[in-house]
């Protein structure tokens, strides 16, 4: 086939025209090739980045902080997502009408809002954190450039001030600041995850580009706290503080069998849900952090030390003159009796008797008993900032100190520490390790402090405190036998003991036949005229103990006469114990 031979197809073209068309086409090709080389070869990183930015997304997977609940699952702290309003001043464009609308939504005056938004800051700042869900919807509907909502988690404390001292609180960045929130920060905190995804035009996720780093949610915590008992302790303490016009106070409720802290309340209180007014005073967990001189509540340990040596029996009689001189110090009894048994010394809280008992021991022997009971050492609850109290080495004791130590001056303890030490009497000589967390009974191994017989003898002595002739008549709980010890100590003010400032305390246990609960109460500076531990701290103890025993459905152990039934009122039947 020879086209040139066909007449019809024969073209009479000038050669330059051929050359022209050819070079134009080639030129165009060259331009495309250069451009392609420029884009693909020289500029590829930049363009690939742009492309990825459209289709690829790096997502952070949110992780929330773990929940804290009481032993029955009642919530004490929970993190829940909330929206907060952020502004980027550089992009902010608002009309006057929009200002007014936004001010109305946020519930603040227009000038205030304007001042806030026209702040000269680079980057962005939060306008309101958090906003309510309704506000969030209305703000989103406005669609103002430069204003955006951001999701973050906020911590809520449903029990509020009732459990505030134990649970503690977190700061704005979700870091535990106080209490359990701080102690278990590492366990509670959530760790954000990350994933890279490919998106299509409509924003659907198509596939993962890299292995997903899963978010780790914070672990949940179950505390030993029983919220009902905690509430009762909180309420009764608040009532007592108000009636006696006291400066503060604490209540600790321990499970004598397991060492769990069932309740721990302090006054004054603070609201962990309101972070506006930070005041360090009310936030302090006094029961764990503050120390005081225990006063007469130390006397059962003197009795235990003496009994342990086999020097005396509970019924051994001791001469107790009204005053007794040790060095330059004159020890005095408020209600003197010429002769008392060891048991009566505890019952009537005789200082002279206690001093004579303690002086029959060497300082080393007495120190050893106090040390073994946990005084001067950290109680081991794991609470941040818990104090060890103060117990000086026996070799540095002067005779006067040896004597004052017998009625609780010259050493200091925290309420938690003191209540823990009483566990030895409640638990037949064994002290269980303290715990703010709920735990299973089989996990626990106690430490033997006293022999079972000594512990029982001292407990029997402490039971007489709540009987006729004792100092703790107002600590009685109907239906139950109660053992405990009152304490009234002068406060140390500027290095001197103030004559009119007291710390009233009571530590006790019930049911005395087989104690299940230990409750320690201390009231700081009651100024309503009454200041004896039995009258100020005692009623708080009795109220909390009665309610807690009922809460735990423990069978009464007092003799029948105490739980008599009246004829004219129909009984309320409570079923207790037994079972298959």
């Amino acid at each position: 086939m020879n086209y040139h031979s066909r007449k019809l197809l024969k073209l009479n073209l000038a050669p330059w025209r051929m050359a022209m068309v050819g070079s134009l086409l080639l030129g165009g090709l060259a331009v495309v090739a250069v451009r392609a080389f420029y884009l693909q070869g020289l500029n590829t990183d930049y363009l690939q980045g742009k492309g990825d930015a459209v289709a690829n997304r790096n997502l952070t997977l949110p992780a929330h902080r773990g929940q804290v609940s009481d032993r029955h699952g009642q919530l004490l702290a929970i993190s829940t997502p909330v929206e907060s309003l952020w502004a980027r001043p550089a992009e902010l464009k608002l009309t006057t009408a929009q200002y007014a609308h936004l001010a109305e939504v946020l519930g603040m005056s227009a000038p205030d809002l304007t001042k806030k938004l026209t702040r000269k800051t680079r980057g962005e700042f939060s306008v309101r954190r958090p906003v309510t869900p309704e506000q969030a919807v209305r703000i989103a509907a406005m669609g103002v450039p430069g204003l955006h909502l951001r999701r973050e988690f906020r911590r809520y404390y449903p029990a509020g001030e009732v459990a505030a001292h134990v649970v503690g609180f977190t700061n704005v960045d979700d870091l535990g600041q106080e209490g359990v929130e701080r102690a278990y920060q590492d366990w509670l905190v959530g760790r954000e995850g990350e994933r890279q995804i490919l998106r299509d035009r409509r924003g659907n996720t198509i596939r993962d580009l890299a292995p997903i780093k899963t978010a780790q949610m914070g672990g949940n915590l179950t505390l030993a706290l029983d919220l009902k008992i905690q509430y009762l302790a909180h309420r009764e303490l608040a009532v007592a503080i108000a009636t006696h016009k006291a400066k503060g106070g604490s209540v600790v409720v321990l499970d004598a069998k397991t060492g769990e802290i069932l309740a721990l309340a302090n006054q004054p209180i603070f609201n962990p849900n309101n972070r506006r007014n930070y005041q360090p005073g009310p936030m302090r967990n006094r029961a764990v952090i503050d120390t005081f001189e225990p006063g007469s509540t130390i006397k059962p340990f003197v009795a235990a030390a003496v009994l342990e040596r086999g020097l005396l029996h509970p019924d051994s009689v001791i001469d107790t003159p009204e005053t007794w001189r040790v060095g330059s110090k004159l020890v005095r009894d408020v209600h003197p009796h010429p002769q008392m048994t060891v048991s009566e010394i505890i019952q009537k809280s005789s200082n002279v008797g206690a001093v004579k008992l303690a002086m029959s021991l060497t300082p080393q022997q007495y120190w050893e008993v106090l040390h073994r009971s946990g005084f001067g050492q950290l109680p081991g609850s794991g609470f941040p900032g818990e104090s060890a109290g103060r117990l000086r080495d026996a070799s540095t004791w002067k005779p006067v100190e040896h004597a004052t130590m017998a009625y609780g001056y010259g050493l200091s303890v925290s309420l938690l520490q003191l209540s823990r030490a009483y566990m030895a009497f409640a638990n037949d000589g064994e002290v269980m390790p303290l715990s703010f967390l709920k735990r299973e009974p089989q996990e626990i191994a106690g430490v033997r402090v006293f022999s079972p017989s000594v512990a029982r003898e001292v407990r029997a002595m402490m039971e007489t405190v709540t009987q006729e002739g004792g100092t703790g008549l107002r600590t009685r709980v109907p239906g139950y036998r109660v053992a405990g010890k009152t304490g009234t100590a002068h406060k140390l003010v500027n290095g001197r003991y103030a004559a009119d400032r007291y710390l009233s305390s009571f530590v006790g246990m019930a049911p005395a036949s087989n104690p299940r609960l230990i409750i320690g109460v201390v009231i700081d500076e009651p100024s309503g005229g009454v200041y004896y531990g039995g009258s100020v701290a005692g009623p708080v103890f009795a109220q909390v103990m009665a309610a807690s025993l009922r809460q735990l459905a423990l069978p009464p152990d007092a003799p029948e006469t105490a739980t008599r039934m009246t004829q004219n009122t129909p009984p309320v039947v409570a079923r207790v114990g037994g079972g298959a």
Partner: protein
Amino acid sequence: MSRLNLILALLLVACALAVIQAQHRSRTYFVELERLKKQARVLDEQWGQLQLEQSTWANLARVDTLARTRLGLVAPPQDRVHVETLTAAP
């Protein structure tokens, strides 16, 4: 020989279509999975908020006040409580 080629070519086309089909299904499922995950997250958050609401209503101080004022309840005094000890069932 040419027949074998033809069969192989058809097979190849069929495989290619199957790959497309599988890819499409995988994307649909993936989108569905993402949607459900998101839903799960939303429900989880709702659950948290409901728990919070529940515990606010059940706040003991509130229940205490309501029981005393609105319902007029009191704790039974000890002399009106009769304790029964249950014996073990045979």
